[in-house]
């Protein structure tokens, strides 16, 4: 099938390798990846700050970009949530309501796409190392994805998956929250990173690059050796 | 009401409520679908209790153990009275406080325990200092291990909560399966004329306020002893 990729703006700018890995994995499974180059952003930053008119202005354009896609894979839990949960609300009682609902219905987060749409848990990956998974809050609670990333990781050869105590606890990113309330954000980061280090994992994996940015930002500042990788990067490993 | 008394603002509040309710809200739990909104009838979502009397006794006993309430079952009142005699001697009760109901009075009389009756009026200090309050109850609830006391069946409001040891006696027919059954029982017994106090007592008084560590006997009784008698006669 033709899979249309939505690459979040911060993944495009800061973590392009995560998106490259998504392309590799999807192609390895025999599907075509389309990437409409005019895409930019889902509109989450103004949305989360309460500027819904501005969010709509960006989202309207994004709706157009993906209008003709059959299946959309969103490269982060938070952008996936924008498409699936908040676009129908943003466009409620507007001329774009039907289109927003249509996009919501055909969008999948990356792990959701592999496990629920394709029915695949083994993508033929190999990664030697101990890994712990951080549940991004949007993917976990808005998209109800908990087992799917873990099923994928458990099928990776050589990978030792350990659960951290605070797997479901927010890392403290929360978009602009991270800079508007940096002291609270960092305290939450501290709790998360402590839990990660406690597992003895070599790598912390997540389905949200913004969480990884928050987590690795703290780990690196504190000289911890634990690396951060997007789920797709692990799955692309051979 | 005297002159300076504030006037109840019911009309204004009701007006604001009616105005507010002109706009309808989304149905309950709509943001988190997964269960079709159905009737709000209480279904057995709470812990299940088996159908037989022995099932109820077992469930009640299990809960009581977890709650650190003492629970004993006796075939006859005489057997329960025997237990109370021993308890009174062990605890060195001078006099037990009780009320005007046949079962607790018979229990204490047969057990040879001196008692006094709060129904004749009582001094708060005297009740505060009483070693034990012995009462009847409305029901025992198997599902939760609760004793349902009331101001009618348990000698008022203070007797079952002020002395530091509460002994309560119930008969087999009073052991109901669950909370809905308990509510049905009191409604059937009293209709609109409910006792002014009904209280589900679930274990001794407790607090976790200090470092979340469980301590029994915060203000209510530190010790709760529940006696179930198969036959009252």
């Amino acid at each position, binding site marked *: 099938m033709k899979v249309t990729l939505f690459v979040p703006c911060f993944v495009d700018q800061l973590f392009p390798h995560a998106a490259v890995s998504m392309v590799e994995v999807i192609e390895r499974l025999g599907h075509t990846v389309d990437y409409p180059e005019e895409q930019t952003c889902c509109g989450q930053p103004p949305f989360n700050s309460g500027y819904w008119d501005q969010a709509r202005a960006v989202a309207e354009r994004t709706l157009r970009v993906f209008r003709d896609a059959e299946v959309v894979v969103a490269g982060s839990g938070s952008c996936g949530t924008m498409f699936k949960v908040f676009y129908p609300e943003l466009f409620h009682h507007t001329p774009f309501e039907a289109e927003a609902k249509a996009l919501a219905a055909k969008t999948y987060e990356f792990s959701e796409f592999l496990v629920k749409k394709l029915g695949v848990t083994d993508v033929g990956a190999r990664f030697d190392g101990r890994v712990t998974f951080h549940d991004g809050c949007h993917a976990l609670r808005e998209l109800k994805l908990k087992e799917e990333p873990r099923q994928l990781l458990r099928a990776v050869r050589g990978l030792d998956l350990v659960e951290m105590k605070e797997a479901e606890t927010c890392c403290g990113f929360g978009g602009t929250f991270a800079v508007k309330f940096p002291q609270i954000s960092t305290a939450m980061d501290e709790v998360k990173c402590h839990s990660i280090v406690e597992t003895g994992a070599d790598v912390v994996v997540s389905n949200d690059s913004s969480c990884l940015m928050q987590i690795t930002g703290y780990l690196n500042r504190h000289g911890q050796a634990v690396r951060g990788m997007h789920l797709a990067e692990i799955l692309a490993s051979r | 009401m005297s002159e300076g008394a504030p006037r109840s603002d019911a009309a204004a509040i009701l007006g604001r409520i009616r105005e507010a309710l002109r706009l309808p809200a989304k149905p309950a739990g709509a943001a988190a679908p997964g269960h079709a909104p159905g009737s709000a009838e209480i279904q057995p979502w709470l812990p299940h209790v088996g159908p037989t009397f022995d099932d109820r006794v077992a469930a009640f006993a299990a809960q009581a153990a977890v709650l650190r309430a003492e629970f004993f079952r006796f075939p006859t009142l005489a057997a329960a009275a025997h237990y109370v005699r021993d308890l009174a001697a062990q605890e060195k009760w001078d006099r037990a406080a009780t009320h005007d109901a046949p079962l607790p009075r018979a229990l204490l009389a047969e057990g040879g325990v001196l008692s006094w009756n709060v129904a004749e009026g009582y001094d708060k200090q005297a009740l505060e200092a009483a070693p034990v309050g012995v009462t009847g109850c409305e029901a025992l609830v198997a599902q939760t291990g609760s004793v349902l006391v009331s101001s009618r069946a348990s000698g008022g409001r203070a007797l079952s909560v002020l002395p530091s040891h509460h002994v309560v006696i119930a008969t087999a027919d009073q052991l109901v399966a669950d909370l809905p059954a308990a509510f049905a029982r009191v409604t059937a017994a009293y209709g609109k004329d409910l006792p002014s106090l009904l209280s589900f007592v679930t274990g001794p008084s407790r607090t976790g306020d200090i470092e979340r560590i469980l301590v029994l006997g*915060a203000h209510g009784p530190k010790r709760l002893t529940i006696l179930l008698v198969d036959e009252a006669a």
Partner: protein
Amino acid sequence: MSTAASTFQHDATAAAADRPRRDFIRFALSGYFAKRRVTQDAYGDWQAARQAAAEIKFEAVNHLDTYLEEFTRNAEARGTKVFWASNSAQARDYILNLCREKEIRSIVKSKTMTSEEIHLNDALEHAGYGVVESDLGELIVQLRKEAPYHFVFPCMHLKRDEISATFEEKLGSAPTDDPEELTMIARRHLRQEFCRADLGISGANFLIAETGTLSITENEGNARLTAALPRIHVALVGIEKVLPKLADLALLLPMLGTAGAAQLLTAYNSLYGGPRQPGEVDGPEEFHIVLLDNHRTRLLADPEQRDSLHCIRCGACLNVCPIFKNVGGHTYGTTYQGPIGSVITPHLRGLQDWKHLSNASSLCGACTETCPVKIDLHHHLLQNRRNAVAQKPVGWEKALYRGFVFLMNRPGLYRLSGKFSPLGLRLQAVVQGTVLDPLRAWTKTRDLPPAPPKTFKQLWAERRAGGPR
């Protein structure tokens, strides 16, 4: 930034830096979580129970006028006096007037957050009445002249040595580090107060319309004593507490116990149907219920957030909230802390002054997930943000997002900006850690990711052109 907002930032900074206290709070809550899992597992279907509880509350709140009127009729038929207070002042005046008329000398209180809301204790003390808090946690914070830290566990932030020191200083007791001995000190101190008091003031967890009864959930037994011994009992209750039927308690009481205290039922769940009735041994001669609006009708008038009135004040949302656990209850600076507090306080006390509570959240959704009556808490925080902006946008922020829209709706311009971001990051590295650093809020405590050599768009364009992946 409002005064409350800047105080919040200041207090949050202090609290976030207090690692031992934060660790203690998390440790204290770990027992609750372990026990709650076990208690919840005993339910046949916890999710179905949540839905049923939500539906009961929906029915009650969306027919609030009907049920409040039914409640009042049935309560008054049993001799209860029901007073409807539109605001704090009316509620306080009623109670103060009652104290005067009935020549009250001594007052004992069981836990009621509504009384905190209307600052009742201050008003009573100002009028010369001594008020004794009988709930152990409330007593402790009252003696320390602190606000409650958590509306279910008022002193969860205190260690036993701190409590012992407070008792030594205020009650003249001997020092001890044994929780049982500390509890007994409070018990002994309060026994006399219960016996002495001629007025008992309580709150309530539920009002039952069908029977005109008031329901109080507790563990200690102090509310039972407050409503048993004094000659007058006054209960102060928010209007949203009403439930339609007595049988509704068969679900709501266990939900409250489970979510609030990880107990299937707390030690005492008591129903008060009136003052002492003919033939009863004891009980108050008079029973007054003060129904309080105090801007709850404002919440009611917002159909999007009306379900906030479903709240049964269990406190579970506080227990799961990472913000609450890291900044603590005092930082909120208002009666109701945590997610529910952050949702309703802007409605109760003013949106512009209190919107910062709705902003101080990562919107993780743990609160919504745990709420026993399915309030859509974290989405309400988002809605408060939207409402605050619609009412009064923040100038620079609006300009920033206008710029954001401009950029994001022009992919050519966006691509161009991508070329500059590695440069931007290099420039930023020069000023990092100094006051010139525009990303200082981040870089003070966290590293930035390294600038990748190419953006995804660049990589894809190369691939499209047949170049290296």
